[in-house]
């Protein structure tokens, strides 16, 4: 019930933002949303105690799937692109998950990193896809309705908001119940999970699949927002960024990824605008401050407020 209210409120707020704010803000909101969706997937995975340093793989797959649709198959419908992004990523996750679900800890992290870097290598090698330069994409319709020039990103933001809110609600329901406890169980003590008769492998697999599909959706959203895809999306630094956003937000709440992604983007924007020569340092200091004072992630801020209220 409470979740539904938050969801509706977020939708209204985002729609308002999409319709009323200046273009740059619309774009930033959309990028934050896209990353938020990826991090949401990471959150699902982190419930099982696994951190993937390779979500860039699915982020990239989602983006390239959407972009290829537009660029090579001339399907320029944003809704189809989003769906294709999530589906393509989900499909690959379903395959790789069979292998990766056996891995734990840093080995899981690094093997997923290896896969994302292999895709990176493939993309860098594909001259037809523009190698590291990537290529541009255009979505001209949404559910078949032609988009007015200049309004595309406003529409995408609303579409992105709907995707994100639905995804967040589903994840919220999933993790709030038995499945969430089971995932925590896998994180805490796999042996006991097995001895209770459940399969840790299956839990990890399913969560990996969800994370992959969400990263794909995020990738497609980002591709729509940026209008350009390139292999950098699959590079480990991109994957690393997702992990950092996840930790920045903390893993307690479904809203945290979105809040953290927004703050991360904003921090980076402010740093590069006002300290172009030392933006990395500013970002680093900001991150340290957050870790020092909000040990369980940004979300502790909200928690504190709630408690004092």
């Amino acid at each position, binding site marked *: 019930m409470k979740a539904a209210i938050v969801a509706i409120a977020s939708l209204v707020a985002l729609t308002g933002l999409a319709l009323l704010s200046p273009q740059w803000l619309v774009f930033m909101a959309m990028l934050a949303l896209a990353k938020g969706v990826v991090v949401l997937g990471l959150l699902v995975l982190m419930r099982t105690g696994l951190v993937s340093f390779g979500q860039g793989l699915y982020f990239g797959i989602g983006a390239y799937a959407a972009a290829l649709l537009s660029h090579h198959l001339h399907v320029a419908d944003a809704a189809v692109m989003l769906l294709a992004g999530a589906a393509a990523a989900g499909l690959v996750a379903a395959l790789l998950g069979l292998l990766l679900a056996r891995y734990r800890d*840093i080995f899981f992290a690094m093997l997923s990193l*290896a896969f994302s870097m292999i895709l990176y290598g493939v993309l860098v090698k594909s001259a037809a896809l523009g190698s590291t330069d990537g290529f541009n994409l255009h979505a001209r319709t949404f559910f078949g309705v032609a988009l007015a020039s200049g309004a595309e990103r406003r529409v995408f933001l609303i579409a992105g908001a709907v995707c994100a809110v639905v995804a967040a609600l589903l994840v919220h329901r999933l993790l709030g119940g038995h499945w969430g406890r089971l995932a925590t169980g896998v994180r805490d003590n796999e042996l006991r999970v097995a001895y209770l008769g459940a399969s840790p492998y299956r839990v990890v697999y399913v969560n990996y699949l969800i994370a992959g599909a969400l990263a794909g959706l995020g990738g497609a959203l980002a591709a729509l927002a940026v209008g350009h895809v390139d292999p950098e999306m699959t590079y480990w630094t991109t994957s690393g960024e997702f992990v950092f956003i996840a930790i920045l937000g903390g893993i307690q709440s479904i809203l945290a990824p979105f809040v953290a992604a927004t703050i991360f983007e904003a921090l980076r924007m402010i740093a590069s605008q006002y300290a172009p020569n030392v933006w990395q*340092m500013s970002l680093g200091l900001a991150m340290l401050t957050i870790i020092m004072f909000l040990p369980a992630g940004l979300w502790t801020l909200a928690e504190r407020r709630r408690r004092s209220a």
Partner: protein
Amino acid sequence: MSSILPIAFDGIAYASWLFLISAGLTLIYGVMRILNVAHGSLYALGAYAACSLAGAWLGGGLPAAGSFAMLLLAAVLVGSLVGPLIERGLLQWMYGKDEVVLVLVTYAVFLIMEDVIKLVWGVDSLLLPEPYALPGNFQLGGLPYPVYNVVLIALALATGLALAWALYRTRQGKLLLAVIHDREMSMAMGINVSRVYLATFAVGATLAALGGAFTAPTIAVTPGIGVEVIVLAFAVVVIGGLGSLGGAALGALLVGLVRSATVRYWPEAELFSIYAVMAMVLIARPKGLFAAQEARKI
């Protein structure tokens, strides 16, 4: 046949470099459970410090052979000043936090150091070619090879052996094992855990800086050299099995040899080689070549 020797030599030289940077990483991870992203910055810092020190030495007209000592000095200085600074100033407040949070902390340190390096040394590349050119070449399979690479290999060997001796043949090494396994119980047994951490981080930082300092003469020292190193080193460490020194050595060797063979026979695949090796090793051995022994749980 004639190409085996060159491939092996190039591979081993590259492996030596990889080993130097991964040894510190695996040590810090093994003992402190910190995946130290700032390792890349320490590597870069070592390279920059080496350029400054050896550059000043050579610029002062002192004997060129002494520049090797400057490389060492640079590594030790970085390790014993910056290492403790990071550990005491920052990390020591973070112990007990989740592993991934510590990754984030070291990532922040990495970001900060990138800009610090830029502010101190500027964005232009620094060059220190003398130590590389000084020892000259030798012939192998009809091709000239720099003697400097032999120096690098010897350095890696010496470092590896010294570390192995310290870790596996001394009491300090066994105490370290206790700290690794159970911080709290170690304190109760009278081990000064905080000092162990400090020393470990300083040694790890010195190793990173050593890698950077001895690479400096072969490359142009530019902003960003630390970024690439991190993933390479992580990959080697994971291939070898976390926290295992022998693993890091074997992992480095494997990666080095595969890379040099790839460059020779299939240059387009160079980009994948290390990740392909990592994926293959992990598929065959999910915990790396030398998996850490686990305690009996039930």
